[in-house]
């Protein structure tokens, strides 16, 4: 009897999956105007660092290695959340239709960067993590253009090296 119910439930779920998926928001969308692409870039740098460190784990003690891997994976996962959340906030709350019209590659840039962040989250993939950072940097440059300020790329003081986009 339960088997039949499970089968029916699975069939209903499969049918419902045929419905197109739209977006709904449950944000705090108070128009406070406080937006900054800095956190997204820091999160991407952290993902790069965790990916590097995961590749450098020493196997002298299995227990310690497993513990370190668990912690680094956890931090990488947390920062993937931060990166995705920050990008979604910029995409959904800050950038308006006129921005997407003025910068036609902006939408693809978000898709590409979110995909790279997802890939870097799911695997130990330094290239994906670097692509996520590159995307976050380009989005930051467009963000500052919309604010009418000049952006600059400065060398970071992080162990990951590389750059971060700030404004003058």
């Amino acid at each position, binding site marked *: 009897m339960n088997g039949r119910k499970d089968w029916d439930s699975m069939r209903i779920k499969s049918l*419902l*999956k045929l*419905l*197109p*998926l*739209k*977006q*709904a*928001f*449950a*944000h*705090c*969308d*108070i128009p406070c105007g406080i937006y900054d692409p800095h956190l997204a870039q820091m999160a991407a740098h952290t993902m790069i660092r965790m990916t590097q460190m995961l590749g450098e784990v020493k196997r002298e003690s299995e227990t310690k290695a497993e513990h370190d891997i668990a912690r680094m994976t956890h931090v990488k996962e947390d920062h993937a959340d931060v990166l995705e*959340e920050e990008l*979604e906030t910029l995409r*959904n709350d800050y950038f308006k239709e006129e921005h997407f019209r003025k910068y036609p590659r902006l939408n693809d840039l978000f898709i590409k960067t979110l995909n790279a962040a997802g890939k870097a989250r799911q695997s130990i993939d330094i290239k994906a993590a670097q692509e996520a950072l590159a995307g976050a940097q380009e989005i930051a440059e467009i963000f500052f253009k919309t604010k009418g300020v000049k952006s600059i790329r400065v060398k970071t003081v992080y162990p990951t090296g590389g750059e971060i986009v700030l404004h003058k």
Partner: protein
Amino acid sequence: MLLARFKVSGHSMEPQIKNGEEVLVTGIIYLFKKPKINDIVAFKKDKKVLIKRIIGIDDDKYFVAGDNKNDSLDSKTFGLISKRQMLGKVI
């Protein structure tokens, strides 16, 4: 709205609806009975679809709020929701 599937972005309805979770919304139910307090509803606001819970009703106006008080904006900021804005109930 007959039936629609939405992916929810945001934390204001946690723990009931988590960021990234998919929900189904139907307007059919409101053809037969009025929305009531505690219903989680989808409605249109500034061309966006928002999801909140009804916490008060005044005639055909609905006072909505998020469950997660640390992260939600309630009707005091964007006003009461009219039945015309209502798309349906989250089921």
